[in-house]
């Protein structure tokens, strides 16, 4: 399988944003890759991100996705704490 370099924007919300002290970061990675790969890279590279669960709720381009969903270059990947709306 051919691999290419890519970048995704990763966004953090609520408690996760507090843990990493920011609301977004860019993550460079080798494609193809999954949301789970992005989570793993974030947890390794970003100070404070180790406290984010290994399997958080996630969204890509404003849609809920499973962690085995693929990411594309330029995607917006969001890591979502347990939802507590309503």
């Amino acid at each position, binding site marked *: 399988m051919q691999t290419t370099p890519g970048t995704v924007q990763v966004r953090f*919300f609520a408690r996760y944003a*507090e843990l990493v002290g920011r609301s977004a970061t860019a993550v460079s990675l080798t494609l193809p890759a999954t949301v789970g790969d992005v989570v793993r890279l974030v947890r390794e590279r970003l100070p404070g991100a180790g406290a984010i669960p290994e399997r958080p709720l996630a969204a890509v381009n404003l*849609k809920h996705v499973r962690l085995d969903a693929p990411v594309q270059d330029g995607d917006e990947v*969001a890591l979502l704490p347990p*939802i*507590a709306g*309503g």
Partner: protein
Amino acid sequence: MTHFTREPLSLERLVAEVSSPACGGTCVFLGTVRNGPAEGGVTAIEYSAYEAMLEAEFGRLLADAGGRWPDVRIAVRHRLGTIPVGDASIAIVAAAPHRAQAFDACRFMIEEVKRRIPVWKKELRVDGSEVWVDPSGRPTAKPSHV
């Protein structure tokens, strides 16, 4: 259509949005900030959201509800920001020709909101502490290193 606001929710306005001469039964759900015995000193809740996704997901949710209940007219608004105890954080209105559909659609909406809409809340307490609320209703202590 915007499904969130930082202002107090107006129930009358939301009801008016879905009123129709063909609808005889309207069911409303209001979620309000609570300070009951289980809460112990909550003065307000700070609601935040992934706002762009909130809009997108509400659009998909309303489409899902429209598929299940084609005759039901639904309006929903989530309030964000700091909401004092007693004020509404969400209002859902479902107007239908007959009441059973109105109740069912309204109940479906609030259950799905709690499952799908990316909103978070942090309790502000009388002692000055702040705690994130997890979906089971148990607060998560703010990590000590923050």
